[in-house]
């Protein structure tokens, strides 16, 4: 990282470690999440989906949290820390807008000034979330440089932070970037896995056979995975954005197809060319469209504790339709990647272990924000019925 940010990162590290060791801070964080964000989120048995795949599919309903995603956990933690550090302004980057909306929400609740950097491409495909952030009082800055997506929004937010670090906190949106962000974001998100583990034991008397989450930067995934790392019998699956297919080069499957490098102050897998230039990533999900990944995921992949598999745009959109039709739950496209990949895992485990085989899928966010993409993809919105009906198929089934 630039020397200009070293002091701020060191201060943040000390403040975060002190806060996490302070019972009063942890208690206040838990109270805020419970009373305001709506956690613990439910662990829901998706029975119709389970029958289709022959295994017990449990959905960790982070989509029911306030602002509609797991992101609220991270930002409330970081905003609480911001207040503790005496800073008055927050900045954030966002891809799909989930983290931007969560940051704007936290800023409103904690009475902090808020600026959100968003790739200009993303402001167009996530216009609804731009409006939500503005309504919440945040300033949204479209970033035109580079590929005008999430990585460029991070670059711009870092530039802002260099110039404003004395009074501004950077609410980093994912478990990537320089230390302490990957560990801090993991800590604030780990309630997802802690709750899911406890709920699964309480409701079914067993640990799951597998847990699954989508991985862009990897905050929801590391939040889920952390609780199960020591449970050797629990398979851990991350599903990366495969875009048009890894073989096409138009994807964001960083662990599957990236190579070790340095991006945004972290050593991790990076989509890069022969010269170390970051390669533009692609995903139908703006929230997963990032050419790097949290370093902890790189480590889990390298040591073989977690498996990371690409899921294409088409597979994710099919899963979005499937979950909508079978369970009446419209997932975020990010989460639909996890659903698509996890149902293949569930089908295999069902064949191996029978219908009590249990898979927890982190439903990290709801799909309201993605309706524009869904309308375009499925040809929806024609009340006269000219559009073809969406066909929902489970993995492995013919449409």
């Amino acid at each position, binding site marked *: *990282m*630039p*020397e*200009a*940010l*070293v*002091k*701020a990162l060191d201060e943040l590290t000390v403040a975060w470690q002190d806060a996490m060791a302070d019972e009063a801070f942890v208690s206040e964080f838990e109270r805020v999440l419970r009373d305001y964000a709506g956690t613990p989120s439910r662990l829901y048995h998706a029975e119709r989906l389970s029958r289709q795949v022959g295994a017990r599919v449990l959905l960790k309903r982070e989509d029911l949290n306030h602002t509609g995603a797991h992101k609220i956990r991270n930002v409330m933690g970081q905003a609480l820390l911001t207040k503790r550090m005496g800073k008055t302004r927050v900045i954030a980057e966002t891809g799909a807008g989930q983290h931007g909306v969560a940051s704007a929400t936290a800023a409103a609740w904690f009475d902090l000034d808020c600026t959100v950097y968003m790739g200009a491409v993303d402001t167009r495909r996530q216009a609804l979330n731009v409006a939500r952030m503005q309504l919440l009082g945040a300033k949204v800055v479209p970033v035109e*440089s*580079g590929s005008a997506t999430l*990585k*460029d929004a991070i*670059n711009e937010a*870092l*530039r802002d932070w*260099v*110039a*404003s*670090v*004395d009074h501004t906190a950077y609410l980093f949106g994912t478990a990537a970037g320089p230390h302490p962000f990957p560990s801090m974001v993991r800590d604030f998100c780990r309630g997802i896995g802690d709750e899911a583990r406890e709920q699964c034991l309480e409701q079914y008397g067993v640990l799951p056979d597998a847990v699954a989450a989508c991985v862009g930067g990897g905050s929801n995934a590391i939040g889920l995975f952390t609780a199960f790392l020591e449970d050797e019998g629990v398979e851990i699956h991350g599903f990366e954005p495969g875009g048009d297919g890894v073989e096409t080069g138009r994807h964001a499957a960083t662990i599957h197809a990236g190579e070790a*490098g*340095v*991006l*945004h*102050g972290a050593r991790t897998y*990076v989509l*890069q060319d*022969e*010269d*170390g*230039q*970051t390669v533009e990533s692609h995903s139908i999900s703006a929230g997963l469209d990032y050419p790097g990944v949290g370093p902890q995921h790189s480590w889990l992949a390298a040591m073989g504790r977690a498996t990371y598999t690409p899921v294409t745009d088409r597979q994710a959109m099919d899963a979005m339709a499937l979950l909508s039709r079978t369970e009446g739950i419209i997932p975020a496209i990010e989460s639909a990647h996890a659903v698509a990949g996890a149902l293949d895992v569930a089908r295999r485990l069902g064949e191996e272990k029978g219908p009590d085989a249990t898979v927890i899928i982190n439903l990290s966010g709801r799909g309201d924000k993605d309706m524009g993409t869904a309308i375009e993809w499925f040809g929806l919105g024609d009340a006269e019925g000219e559009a073809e009906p969406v066909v929902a198929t489970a993995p492995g089934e013919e449409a």
Partner: protein
Amino acid sequence: MASTTTAFEKARAEDRAALVGYLPAGFPSVDGSIAALRTMVEAGCDVIEIGLPYSDPVMDGPTIQAAAQQALERGIRTRDVIDVVQAVAETGVPTLVMTYWNPVERYGVERWATDLAAAGGAGLITPDITPDHGGAWSAAADAHDLDKVFLVAPSSTDERIAMTSAASRGFVYAAAVMGVTGAREATSDLAGPLVARVRASGDIPVAVGIGVSTGDQAAEVAGFADGVIVGSAFVRALLDHPDDEAAGLAALRTLTEDLAGGVRRG
């Protein structure tokens, strides 16, 4: 290979600051950047800093990023940067590369140091690698007698300034403002105290960068620093003449002469 240290000593002997000029390689083209950098040498730059265009230049403002982006879109490769270094170093002026870390690591640190030294390059300026995380580079630089220019910022603690000064060779780059590169109307009041703090940590030359675009600003900074680093203003001179190379070079020459006059007035 020309020595950066010698260039600073020469300027100090003339009781003035050295002028350090920056342009990205490959901007506006590979040959165009060579012509521009040679013009800057002819018109008074004492040290040349060649940027390696990178896709994610966190410490650069919009002007330099636009130039780097243009170079990348026109297909600049790391190897081309070495070639630009060679062409400029042939003028006899110490020529350093300013680069973010990932392209160096990708090229191979040892291979990079070998090729840079063979091209006559003087060393590296590394905006996103600090000495405490730059062990691989420091070892390679030491093995090839290359300069290691690390940055300090107004936010740096005295301990980190001392560590950075001790680890640097050639000069220390003092980022004068808490912010990214780019011309500013007024020089920073943070620069003077920062230079003084570096001076207190040793006798390595300290050059101030970020924000200087005129001879008068250069004179002001030269009053308290060993070197004045200018980048965005040079880039702007070329960006303002996109379709007329001769006019761009003429503007560059005029600007360099103004700045060179400035460091002599300071």
